[in-house]
């Protein structure tokens, strides 16, 4: 079996295992849309602040469900990997001809397939809430791919924790740290309108801001190539870094096995 076929096979397993857990699925689907709904309703007066880049707060926040979805689904994939290690499945898999790269990428592929379905639902939900999408039809796949790259980066980072600890609880425990990255970014306000200088500085050095701004540019501005390129660059850089670290953790785990 080729590496691609192995990735597809293990990806299918990861995908099916996720959709068979309706509690997790429902949360990953409902929470991001609910958050968009309540936050954009509560913060709508903010769109009247001079210099605010969008006509309404729902337009401004429309990018966030995609990041939330990436976060939940990618971490769920990492938790499942932790469970595979905990239950001994990874050890048994190591006795088969499955390649290491296929085991790692297969797990991520299942998460990406799931997240792409969720993005369709978030997109429809956002439009129903009154959001506008300036980039047009061609912008939709660009938005989805950028958000999915974010999911891969988060998933690979979560996989590192799963491989190092071998415990689903440990992956669950680091979940809030990813939320820190999200909340200390330009998620709620454009960086130039943040008044607290310390927060503006944190948001500027936080790579999550650039991922969000890349997604947001398609929604509120249309085709802002520079912002989009920075968003893609940050996502790809994060993937390269997270995958190299998780590959090392994978080798260490297999050696121990």
């Amino acid at each position, binding site marked *: 079996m080729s590496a691609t076929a192995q990735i597809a096979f293990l990806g299918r397993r990861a995908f099916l295992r996720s959709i068979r857990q309706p509690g997790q699925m429902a949360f990953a689907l409902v929470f991001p849309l609910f958050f968009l709904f309540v936050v954009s309703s509560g913060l709508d007066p*903010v769109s009247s602040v001079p210099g605010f880049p969008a006509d309404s707060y729902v337009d401004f926040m429309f990018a966030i469900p995609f990041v939330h979805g990436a976060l939940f689904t990618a971490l769920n994939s990492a938790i499942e990997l932790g469970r595979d290690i905990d239950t001994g499945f990874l050890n048994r898999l190591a006795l088969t001809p499955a390649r290491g790269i296929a085991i790692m990428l297969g797990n991520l592929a299942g998460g990406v397939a799931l997240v792409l379905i969720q993005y369709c639902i978030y997109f429809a939900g956002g439009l129903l809430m009154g959001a506008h999408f300036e980039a047009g039809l061609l912008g939709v796949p660009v938005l989805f791919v950028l958000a999915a790259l974010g999911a891969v980066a988060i998933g690979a980072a979560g996989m590192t924790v799963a491989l190092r600890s071998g415990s689903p609880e440990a992956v669950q425990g680091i979940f809030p740290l990813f939320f820190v990255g999200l*909340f*200390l970014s330009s998620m*709620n306000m454009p960086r130039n309108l*943040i008044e607290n200088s310390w927060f503006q500085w944190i948001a500027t050095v936080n790579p999550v801001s650039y991922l969000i701004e890349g997604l947001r540019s398609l929604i509120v501005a249309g085709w802002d190539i520079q912002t989009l390129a920075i968003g893609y660059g940050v996502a790809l850089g994060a993937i390269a870094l997270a995958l190299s670290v998780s590959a090392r953790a994978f080798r260490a785990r297999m050696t121990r096995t």
Partner: protein
Amino acid sequence: MIHVASAVAYRVIKKSLTNISFLLPALMFPVIFFVGFAGALSGVDRIPGFDYEPGYETFQFAFVLVQSAAMAGVFTGFGIAQDFERGFARRLMIAAPRRSGILVGYAIATMIRWVLNTAVVLAIGLLIGMEILGNGLDLFALLLLGLTVNLIGTLWAAGVALRLRSTQAGPIMQFPIFLVIFLAPVFVPIDLLTGWIHAVATVNPFTAFIEGARSLLAGSTEEVGVAFGIAVPLAALFGLWALTGLRSAERG
């Protein structure tokens, strides 16, 4: 009952402080919400009609205080459900002469954990320049209000956990609390909300809790009577909910 309650409380506190998967979410979420909202949205207090004297950091601290109080109870509900899944709760129920002491123990532990978490958020708030205009008595009333909301959250989640006895029930404990918290005036005063969210926030009990907390932090007693007037009967009602849940768990 005291022995049962103190033994359960000791165990829960020890587990909460030594297990990272319990410690981190309960502590980090209030901190994230506070720093994220107060830091990013500080300019919101320039919106016409925003007239909260202590400033936006204090405005958000009141929300985080109430939110963390209720959510700490939900985390306790997760722990109860996990204890049932692992068989520990069954052994505990056999060993305890007064089973209501188990509930009291969980509630005491949750209160202690919430006070510790709130101290961390308060320290961060003071570090970033949050102003508190209330005096010692106001802050004591604020603590009592927070503890009452904390009790409501614990009793609600315990009632669900004791009936369903599975961690799969987590979203049932968490989501209604999350819903009512975020359908309150979280980011701007209620007068600045318009449309459906204004209507919902007006009848939402958490609006009274958050506004009561904001009043106390601003050194005013406005809305405080309403907050306690709603919180105390709600705690009694959810006490009944949790006790009937305990009876359901006893029947198996």
